[in-house]
């Protein structure tokens, strides 16, 4: 359908200022938020800024997400040491490397692994590492139960608790790698 042209009265700036933006400037029916009148196909004559903003918002969202995704794909989790961790790093996803001073502990309920915990020690200090539920079971299935002397590379979320007690929580089973087995390993 061909768009109706505007009446002369509505082309003047004064009329546009007094006009109710919820009404069609051509047939004067209520059109609400529609950009084009559904009755006579006339343009709603709203400020073009809003239409530009609609397209701009969508483009900004998609392009921004694209850049962030590319950044994420090419960014490894930052490597930190136990002594560097502070309260500002709460929720950070980091990578840590160290040795186990003692065997890991596996909590089992029935036939299911409930929890895996071990301490990771490096030159600057130590940090407890935990995995829960299915993640813990998958870690044990993939690499076995880590033992004293094992050198491990692990990535996870840092959690800072009261009195700045810190622990690392494993979220992805594949992010626990045993680089070198300790003396106690067969």
């Amino acid at each position: 359908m061909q768009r109706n042209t505007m009446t002369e009265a509505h082309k003047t700036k004064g009329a546009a200022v007094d006009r109710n933006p919820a009404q069609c400037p051509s047939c004067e029916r209520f059109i609400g938020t529609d950009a084009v009148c559904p009755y006579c196909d006339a343009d709603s004559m709203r400020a073009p800024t809003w239409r530009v903003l609609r397209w701009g918002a969508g483009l900004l969202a998609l392009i921004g997400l694209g850049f962030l995704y590319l950044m994420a794909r090419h960014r490894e989790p930052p490597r930190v040491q136990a002594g560097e961790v502070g309260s500002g790093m709460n929720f950070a996803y980091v990578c840590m490397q160290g040795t186990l001073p003692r065997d890991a502990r596996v909590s089992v309920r029935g036939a299911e692994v409930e929890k895996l915990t071990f301490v990771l020690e490096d030159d600057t200090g130590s940090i407890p590492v935990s995995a829960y539920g299915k993640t813990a079971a998958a870690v044990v299935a993939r690499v076995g139960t880590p033992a004293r002397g094992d050198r491990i590379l692990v990535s996870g979320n840092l959690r800072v608790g009261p009195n700045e007690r810190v622990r690392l929580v494993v979220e992805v089973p594949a992010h626990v790698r045993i680089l070198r087995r300790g003396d106690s390993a067969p």
Partner: protein
Amino acid sequence: MSDILQVVCGSVAGTLLAAALFWVPALHVYNVAALAFLGLGRMDGVYEAMPLLPVAGLTGLIIGFALFNTLPAILLAVPDESAFFTVLPGQRALMRGRGYAAILSSSLGVMLGLLFLVLIAAPLAPWVLPAAARVLRPHLHWMVWAVICFMLLSEWPKGGTRGQGGWIKLGRAWRSLLAGLATFLLAGLLGFLLFYRSPLPVAASWQSMMPAFVGLFAVPWLLTNVIGRAVIPPQTLVVDRLSVVTWLRGGAAGAMGGAFAAFMPAVTGGVGGMLAGHATSQRDPREFLVAQGACKLVYYAGALLLFLVPGLHLTRGGGAWLLRVRYAAHGFHDYFAVLAAAGISGALGLWILPPVARLAVRMLAGRQCRGVSWCCLLLVTGLVGALTGWAGLLVMATASGIGLIPVLFHSRRMNCLGIILLPIACRMSGCGHVLAAWLRLV
């Protein structure tokens, strides 16, 4: 300093700070609280010598936020006239010159929510909630999915009701619905990026979600105020009588929604209020305003109290996560101390809200919101840049694009909560890392 003095000073200071700050749009209580905790942390020995002071102060801030944040939410949210029939009752009241009455209706809801929390919920919580948490814990993941499904499915089309039938009319009807779904999915994708491979510096991780939330909710609001030429209409200080039935119905609905949102992970007060509104078939706009106030208070204060409930110590909401870093709950003594702080803060806040609201109405009525909105836009941009750097600004800009979609296409802004709902629901269901691997983030 004795415990009683810590509670009184902390709650009074928190409430007064809230009164001074939270009628500035776009400032959120968790951002201010984070900065306050950062400042206190630099003062040696404060947490050890006066452990209840920061807790009481946080309680005062939260209660004050629930009260004073209503001011910008109503007075500085002027809709375009063509969108009048899709806006909230608070905005409609503002356009009819009854913004002051709307603010007081909401504060009555806050008062009812506080009475519910302090007199009913809190005394029962130590005996009921630990058992409820044990029963519900294995089911929380599908409950979150149910909330997501209801949130998306309950949105109604806001176009396609006029003109001749056909594909064009169908397209107009689905435009806002598709915009809502796109908002949820794009926000969810952003959430996955932030959860698994955040671009923010490691030292800024404690505020990892701040740039995203500012971009999703604050920037679109401020930007539309800056671009639009809407003027706050003249306001009257006359207040309608509110019937007790309306007050109780609204308060009960809001308290239910707030309590549900406080307990559930990833579900915020807005979602809780929406669920309660549907559950109680709210129609009266004043009842809606009362419910919003009650929901906001019960959600924010309830989430903090859940951390302190003896035998429970559930961490929900940004306030509890902030507190957890520095403070370990010590049983009933601290629990009732915080309840006392809540009561003091509520009483003080409700006493000073009416004169502050009258002052705000006199200052803003008849003016455009552009100037205030420009200042606030610069303020939040500066805050995000200072705390999280250029990476945070990029996240904020991306989130702003996503947050503008529901505003410009007239869909629900609540869909932006996909940023936390989708990743957390996937993680709770055990498929979070599977999806992240599919996206090649891990």
